């Protein structure tokens, strides 16, 4: 078995790492501190091709395999969680549903500026009263002639309230299925549509430089051409989107773990106590050895899940496993990393402090750890 990445994948890792270290690392702390989304940095990420990575060239995408995309997210997350969130949500949640389920006309209209990183797109599934239970959506869309009228609200929607947001995909209840269950349909709502408001959420503990929004729909009228794909496909589209999206959350866990581990190793080799570098104390060295081992496990699991996706094999179980493992992995690694930094690790001046905070979302977003365990246990026949 050959675990080597191909030439392009290696180059992508190298270039994204270089970019992240040079362009993101120097501003990450300040943006976190100010809780500021940076349009300028997002555009720069667009220029080197961090959006539209798996979309085809017909829509100005990069036509890369899924593993290459995941490696790119991993490398951004190695330096900063917020920017990785902008990239991962931009690709998996913004571009993904439009690319996979959109009509040709919708793709031509929206994808090119998104793939060039000039515009962003939100994905609205979560509601104030429907989180893990996405089937509990209360947002509705009612047909009126050739239009649909949307009412309701969404919460925690990434990339949805920036100056460069072009629109959002929202899931709404459009009727009842013969089975008695609600019928869901996804709609495209462009920014600026009458009755649609996106409001930035503040005071986040993590991903402070990523844009998170509450969406309000007050009799928002959209033409029937704004249905994503077909009426009634909404729930399925959202679930499939999350299967892929989970791989990008896993990539953020893996990259964040790698970044925190590297910082801790570097610190342990230079910090001296009792006349020697603390990395020489077994209690510290073993923590780092555990981190290195678990990161290796996480990477192999995540890349295997991506390989399955690239080979068009079922990957839902592996995707849930990778998301669960890599998110929690980063939790353990950032915890060790702070411990190794001692008191300094609790100060904002040291990046591990930010990594520690940014990690927590990964146990929650795109399906909580509990939900991943539910998915996995169903797959193994419990």
């Amino acid at each position, binding site marked *: 078995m050959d675990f080597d990445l191909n030439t392009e994948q290696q180059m992508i890792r190298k*270039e994204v790492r270089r970019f992240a270290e040079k362009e993101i690392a120097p501003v990450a702390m300040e943006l976190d501190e100010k809780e500021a989304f940076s349009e300028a940095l997002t555009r720069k990420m667009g220029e080197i091709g*961090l959006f539209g990575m798996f979309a085809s060239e017909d829509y100005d995408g*990069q036509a890369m395999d899924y593993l290459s995309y995941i490696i*790119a997210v991993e490398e951004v997350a190695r330096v900063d969680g917020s920017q990785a969130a902008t990239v991962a949500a931009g690709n998996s949640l913004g571009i993904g549903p439009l690319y996979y389920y959109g009509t040709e006309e919708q793709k031509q209209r929206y994808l090119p500026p998104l793939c060039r990183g000039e515009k962003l797109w939100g994905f609205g599934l979560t509601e104030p009263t429907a989180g893990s239970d996405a089937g509990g959506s209360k947002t509705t869309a009612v047909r009126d002639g050739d239009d649909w009228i949307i009412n309701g609200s969404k919460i925690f929607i990434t990339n949805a309230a920036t100056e460069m947001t072009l629109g959002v995909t929202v899931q709404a209840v459009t009727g009842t299925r013969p089975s008695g269950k609600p019928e869901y349909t996804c709609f495209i709502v462009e920014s600026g549509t009458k009755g649609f408001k996106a409001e930035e959420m503040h005071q986040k503990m993590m991903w402070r430089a990523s844009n998170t929004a509450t969406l309000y729909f007050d009799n928002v009228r959209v033409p029937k051409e704004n249905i994503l794909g077909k009426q009634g496909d909404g729930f399925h589209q959202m679930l499939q989107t999350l299967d892929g999206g989970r791989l990008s959350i896993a990539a953020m866990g893996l990259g964040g773990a790698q970044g925190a581990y590297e910082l801790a190793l570097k610190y342990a080799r230079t910090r001296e106590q009792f006349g020697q570098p603390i990395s020489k104390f077994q209690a510290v060295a073993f923590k780092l050895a555990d981190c290195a081992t678990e990161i290796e496990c996480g990477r192999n699991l995540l890349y295997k899940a991506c390989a399955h996706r690239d080979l068009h094999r079922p990957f839902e179980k592996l995707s849930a496993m990778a998301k669960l493992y890599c998110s929690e992995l980063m939790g353990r690694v950032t915890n060790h990393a702070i411990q190794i930094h001692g008191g300094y690790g609790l100060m904002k001046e040291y990046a591990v402090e930010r990594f520690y905070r940014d990690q927590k979302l990964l146990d929650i977003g795109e399906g909580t750890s509990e939900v991943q365990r539910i998915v996995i246990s169903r797959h193994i026949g419990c």
Partner: protein
Amino acid sequence: MNIIVLVKQVPDTESLLEVDTANATVNTQNVKWIINPYDEYAIEEALQIKEAKGAGSVTVVAVGPDRSEQALRTALAMGADTAVLVNDAAAEGSDALGIAKVLAGVIKEMPYDLVIAGVRAVDDDGYQVPAAVAEYLELPLVTAVIKQELGEGKITCHQLVEGGSLVVEAPLPMLFTAQKGLNEPRYASLPNIMKAKKKPLEKKRLADIGLDAALVGTGSAKVAISALALPPERKGGKMVTGDTPEALAAELVRLLKEEAEVL
């Protein structure tokens, strides 16, 4: 305007280098390989010239083993149009002159107006290959260029010299070497990495360029490395003690004279 850029793949200076003292060489198993940073300036300058002219081509050329292909792919991803790799076991162990013979052999067969190289390679630090290539091709040579202006059939180069710069003019075709400060090399963007997959990368052997294998390789090398060692580890500093500034100064002077023997 057809431009040729010489590219060498070198160990990343951030990798941990292990010296193989017995064979007077460096262990390369664990080394990460990158494009020689000075060659990146050369590639960037070639791309900028091509873009300014709106026409022409940039060809990157390397001599080395299979792994060198990655350096060339990176150059293609930065924007070079074509690449040539000379990979021949007979060329292994060549000294600077040997490598220059191979490079000159490849370049001779191609149309070109300008050849650009890095001022030095960060591994061997020999500064010799570009000069020897210029000699074999009978081209004017300007080293350590930090700025250039192309004119009609000629080029004006600002050459970095101790304490200032020298402005030198040369007719085309010519060869110049890129010094830090010439430009800011671009990233190989992700779309360009994917596009580079489809760009031509030609592999050649010595026979393909009509070069006699006996003229290159270990056998014909004029220099041989007899020993290789890491720089000695820095010893800890010494604190000078004394009660008054006069006593401190006197003790310092004594130490500089007697222990360090520098005065």
